[in-house]
């Protein structure tokens, strides 16, 4: 071992640099976010709780087909109504269920939706529940009102006029 090597092994410069670094961070700004009191605002595109608008939905079932794990369940029937003296038929939703506990928030349903009736860009993520089978199984009323879901401050559930924070997916195109 050379003299310098010996000296370097006696004076632990490497260890002291380490100590200096941690010492420096001791006085640095802390990264902690004090969660319940402080919240980081999610980005506009953040995919969180579902928003669902019954009025916009034209029952194309695109979301049901697009869902990779098949957690969207739609039932509907045809209803006749008159418009401008003509008889017309439209589909009426009986049931629109999303099993949110199994959802992986991939956004494929929102991308498949031509009318932007289902979206995930709600910034809302506090949907934890003690019992997931029922609390996290949303039918259309629950979806509209976000029952048991704590909306992110500033966001409203769809029933109260909440709209997506950002349009994420779904090309602008006419209904079919």
């Amino acid at each position, binding site marked *: 071992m050379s003299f310098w090597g010996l000296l370097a092994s006696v004076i632990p410069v490497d260890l002291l640099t380490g100590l200096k670094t941690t010492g420096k961070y001791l006085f640095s700004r802390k990264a902690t976010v004090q969660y319940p009191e402080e919240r980081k605002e999610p980005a506009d595109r953040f995919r969180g709780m579902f928003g669902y608008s019954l009025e916009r939905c034209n029952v194309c079932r695109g979301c049901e087909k697009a869902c990779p794990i*098949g*957690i969207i*369940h739609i*039932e509907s029937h045809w209803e006749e109504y008159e418009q401008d003296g003509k008889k017309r038929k439209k589909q009426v939703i009986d*049931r629109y*269920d999303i*099993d949110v506990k*199994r959802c992986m928030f991939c956004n494929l349903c929102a991308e498949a939706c031509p009318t932007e009736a289902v979206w995930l860009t709600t910034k809302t993520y506090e949907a934890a529940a003690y019992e997931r*089978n*029922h609390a996290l*199984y949303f039918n259309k009323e629950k979806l509209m009102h976000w029952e048991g879901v704590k909306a992110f401050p500033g966001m409203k559930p769809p029933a109260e006029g909440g709209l997506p924070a950002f349009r994420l997916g779904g090309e602008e195109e006419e209904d079919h």
Partner: protein
Amino acid sequence: MSEENKVQQPAPPKMPWEEKPVPPQPQDAGEHPLVRELEAAVPGAVVEALEFAGQVSVVVALDGLMAVLSALKGMGYRFLVDLTAVDWKDRPEGRFDVVYWLHRHGDSARLRVKVRVADGVEVPSAVELWPTANWMEREVFDMFGIYFANHPNLERILTWEGFSGHPLRKDFPIEGIDTGAAVYPDIYPPGGGPVKPKGGA
């Protein structure tokens, strides 16, 4: 903008990503240099050679497999990238394709070697040539039930000992089988679908 101008300026050429994609076509690769090289080393080994999307695959006979593989290793294919299988359930010439995907570092050539085997037929193990084949063959055995002769330790790897069936076979139900491992069947019903309310559809 006048009519004339429009005529004079031809429409800009469509970029490749704006056009309808042209899928690659399979071509016979009997004359491909990689195949000819193999053919020269082991005459008569190649049963079929195909090039698709720039990748060459050769089908070899099961009895010539070891000769082909060791010849390939001698030719510089030192790296076994992948070893897997495909299940063609009702194919008459053998149910499974065992697929070797080899790489040569010198010229970055890649060659896919396939061998067709029927259910229950043993395939010689490639562990001697490439130690990395060990777990890959175990996985193929586990998932497809293809046995490898002379494998040092052919046991299940991803599923557990005592699991019945080979999941990646086409006749294995995609919903899974009842292994008796369901924990709370009354709360979490089998099948894993949405919990439907009583009396619902």
